[in-house]
């Protein structure tokens, strides 16, 4: 895709589990420089939508088109507990064709795990696992990041690291779609907010200087109309 084309295009996507419709007729596009924040109550379908965007689930209806280079962080780390951080990245590096040991070290430094790189993941705290999951997502140097609750378990310093990544993606004309309940930590870096209510993307609106409280009030207003 050229930069004039969206990095992610979602058209009328729906997904059912059995008879239960979890995602209903969701459509939006994300281009370079966009940071789309998806918010919604528990069970609104945010995680399912991220999995659909990543291609881990197939939509029952509609289409998802995304750029070839993307990284994903979900609730699960997708890491191997019996391997060290370095070994996990080396393994994924082989799959992504990223064999440069120096670049892997840089990535570990970036997420603050270089000193712990040779410890097995099973010895890591929740926050350290999340940092490594981010490193795994950044391994292919992606144009698009899909992040499902990336701030869970992170301390202030690690949250700052996520903010740096979001800021960098904006300035480098790349894109991020993320879900979070910790609005205050990231709303100032978002370009747009998507409001998810009961599986529907009720609205996507530019952030335009709104703070977390204003976004929450807008969500409640939209949710009450559904």
């Amino acid at each position: 895709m050229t930069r004039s084309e969206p990095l992610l295009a979602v058209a009328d996507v729906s997904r059912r589990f059995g008879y239960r419709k979890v995602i209903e007729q969701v459509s939006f596009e994300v281009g370079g420089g966009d940071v789309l924040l998806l918010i919604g109550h528990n069970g609104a379908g945010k995680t399912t939508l991220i999995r659909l965007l990543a291609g881990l689930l197939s939509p029952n209806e509609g289409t998802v088109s995304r750029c070839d280079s993307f990284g994903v962080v979900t609730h699960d780390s997708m890491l191997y507990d019996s391997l060290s951080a370095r070994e996990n990245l080396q393994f994924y590096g082989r799959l992504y064709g990223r064999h440069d040991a120096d670049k892997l070290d840089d990535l570990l430094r970036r997420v603050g795990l270089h000193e712990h790189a040779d410890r097995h993941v099973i010895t890591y705290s929740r926050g350290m696992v999340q940092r490594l999951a981010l490193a795994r997502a950044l391994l292919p140097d992606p144009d698009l990041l899909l992040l499902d609750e990336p701030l869970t378990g992170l301390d202030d310093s690690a949250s700052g690291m996520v903010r740096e990544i979001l800021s960098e993606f904006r300035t480098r004309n790349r894109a991020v779609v993320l879900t979070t309940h910790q609005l205050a930590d990231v709303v100032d870096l978002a370009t747009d907010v998507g409001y998810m209510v009961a599986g529907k993307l009720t609205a996507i609106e530019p952030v335009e200087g709104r703070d977390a409280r204003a976004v929450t009030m807008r969500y409640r207003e939209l949710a009450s109309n559904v």
Partner: protein
Amino acid sequence: MSSSLWGTAFAVAAKDLKIEWRTKTAFASSLVFAVLVLAIFYFSRDSTVVSELDIAPAAIWVTFTFAAMLGLNRAFLLEQENRAIDGLLLSPVPRTGIFVGKILGNLAFVAVVELVSLPLFSLFFNVPILHVLPSLLGVAAMATIAFVTVGTLLSAMVVRTRFAELMLPILLLPFLVPPIIGAVQITAGILAGRPMSEFAGWLKLLGAFDIAFVTACLLLFEATVEE
């Protein structure tokens, strides 16, 4: 640049074997199981009624098959922890490469179990095998490829079910029957020193099973892991 099919396969197999080497969970339980089965067959045999050569082929193939099954389940259980399977599926690699890697890892695991079991088998049943070792290894390889390939595919299917460890043997059993019967018949013929022409039909069955089911499993894997 993404990995090729074989690059992916070797990366996945190496990762699986590294993890198994560190944890030794499946390996230890398979070896203990193998020794136990051989011992039970040995001590349960009435030597005045049943000769060693009569029971030996069954003993070795029961040992190989069920010891291998202990390891087959683990192949995709490993990917269920932290949903590492999603990480594999998100990678720009051919999915067939992931499956081939899992097969290679399982084959290596089962091969080690078989290579450790064979001398024990020879010891327990007083059956000399050195002079027929290449033939034995050949038939072991053919039968093992068959049930490891099918077992790997089925383990990918059942791993997300509630009773995965129960489901795998139940689903695998019908597919095991042709190659195991063939392997037992050929092994009996080899150990008895009979000419190969006597069991050529079983060899062809085993070969045909390998070709048909390896092909089918390679084609079906992608559908197995899609949600």
